[in-house]
């Protein structure tokens, strides 16, 4: 009788334990997303090292990381939506323009804007150093690792955008070949907007300052000499600032150094203030340090802490 009760209690315990474990397993694994791979492409392409030899003899990796695909924006889109149902019939191009066109088959709005931007215009003329979809949407330039734009790890998340543009715009040699001599990234990071964005946390309330795309646009970035650029000319630039600084007038905007440094010819007041204050700083502090050093020398000579 007693042993029967004990037995059923023991079974009850085992059962609850098992249920708890199953629940825990489900709980811990539920957040894991799995890519939709209805056609079983990853059976072969999920193997590291799968590659083919390109037309000019180079090895092209055909490995598609399942881990990457699982966290990508397109994880619920089957491989064949992008690759057609006969993927092995079309050779991959590894060409920025055709890749962009592929993205454009679904994202036609963004594609059209981009095609008219300075980056897209140049891309269509065969200049490959400019930004295309994957340069801004995947940290590894991987078509299968496009991150949703509002994820913290996305290259397009506001806090990361400056770094994304800096991949190219902080390369002085590359920019010089296009006649862009201003150090746009450095100067942005020196500005209040840049410092505050870099120091801010990932919370949106911390990221209300301007980053590159707030002033230049996103898919519709224009050359700054294009009159339709949001930073071209006083009128456009004022509109851009006013979007975040209500009531800003022409004087507010004229005080903006852009990416240039102050010089005797450009905002001379700022240039001379810098010289004045640096001179003041150096001379006063040198004076202070000399006095302190002389005092220290004397006190050591008199022996430290020996009173009176």
């Amino acid at each position, binding site marked *: 009788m007693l042993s029967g009760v004990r037995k059923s209690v023991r079974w009850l315990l085992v059962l609850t334990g098992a249920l708890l474990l199953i629940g825990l397993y489900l709980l811990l694994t539920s957040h894991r997303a799995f890519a939709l791979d209805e056609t079983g492409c990853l059976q072969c392409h999920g193997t590291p090292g799968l590659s083919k030899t390109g037309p000019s003899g180079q090895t092209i990796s055909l490995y598609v990381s399942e881990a990457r695909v699982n966290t990508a924006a397109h994880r619920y889109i089957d491989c064949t939506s992008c690759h057609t149902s006969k993927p092995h019939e079309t050779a991959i191009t590894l060409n920025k323009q055709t890749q962009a066109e592929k993205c454009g088959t679904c994202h036609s709005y963004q594609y059209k804007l981009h095609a008219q931007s300075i980056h897209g215009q140049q891309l269509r003329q065969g200049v490959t150093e400019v930004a295309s979809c994957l340069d801004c949407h995947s940290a590894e330039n991987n078509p299968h690792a496009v991150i949703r734009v509002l994820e913290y790890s996305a290259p397009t998340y506001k806090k990361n955008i400056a770094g994304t543009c800096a991949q190219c715009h902080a390369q002085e040699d590359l920019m010089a070949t296009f006649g862009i001599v201003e150090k746009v990234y450095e100067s942005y990071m020196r500005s209040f907007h840049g410092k505050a964005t870099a120091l801010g946390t990932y919370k949106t309330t911390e990221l209300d300052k301007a980053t590159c795309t707030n002033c230049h646009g996103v898919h519709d970035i224009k050359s700054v000499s294009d009159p339709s650029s949001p930073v071209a000319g006083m009128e456009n630039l004022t509109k851009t600032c006013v979007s975040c600084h209500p009531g800003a*007038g022409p004087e*507010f905007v004229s005080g903006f150094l852009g990416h240039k440094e102050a010089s005797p010819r450009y905002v001379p007041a700022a240039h001379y203030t810098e010289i004045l204050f640096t001179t003041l700083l150096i001379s006063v*502090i040198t004076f202070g340090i000399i006095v302190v050093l002389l005092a220290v020398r004397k006190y050591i000579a008199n022996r430290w802490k020996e009173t009176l």
Partner: protein
Amino acid sequence: MTTYSGTIPAELAREEHVTRFDIHQRVQHFFLMVSFTLLVLTGMPLKFAESGISKWWISVLGGVEPTRLIHRGAAWVMIAVCVYHALYLLYGIIVLKKKFTDIFPTKNDFILFFQEMAYFTGLRKERPRFPRYNWREKFDYYAMFWGIPVMALTGLVMMFPVVATRFLPGWVLPVALIAHSDESMLALTWIVVVHVFFNHFVPGVFPFNPSIFTGKLSKERYKVDHPVEYEKLTGQSVQSKEGN
């Protein structure tokens, strides 16, 4: 800063301490010290934004917005201290008929400065005989007259850039940032290197000088640091001697 007219205050003959700062001066200095420290702690990470320490410190404070909020709050405290000081001076001059002559710069300060340098370098045997305020203390005080207005005006321009440029030319914005940024380094290094050194790290005072916090300084110390004032207060003459 009571004006002593040559008579010996009765309590001074008995007490071990000399009253050096009144309660207003101590309160002003306290808030100056607290607000300045907060301003440095919340301003420097913005100036040196790329350094790892700044990033760590900002995350401790909870992000840039809390940091900027503290900077602004402390800035208003500092501005309030200035207003307090101005009222204190006005009230002292108009109502209490004080002269505040002790803090005026005089030709003697230059002489004392060279005497002290001579003393430090060993060219002179005795310490210079300082009055109530020595040249360093006067320098500190007048440095405030330059430093705080510069910091406050440039800071307010950056706080209200749109309002400021409604009646000021646009170039004040970059100028304000540069001036604020550089002047902050000047103030910080001066206070840490010179002010704190001479007030706390000198023999006989180390590790702590209570005068600005309690208002009192020991007679012994006073004799050494401000012999001229001591003589005026007590009528006793003080022999200068070598030593700190």
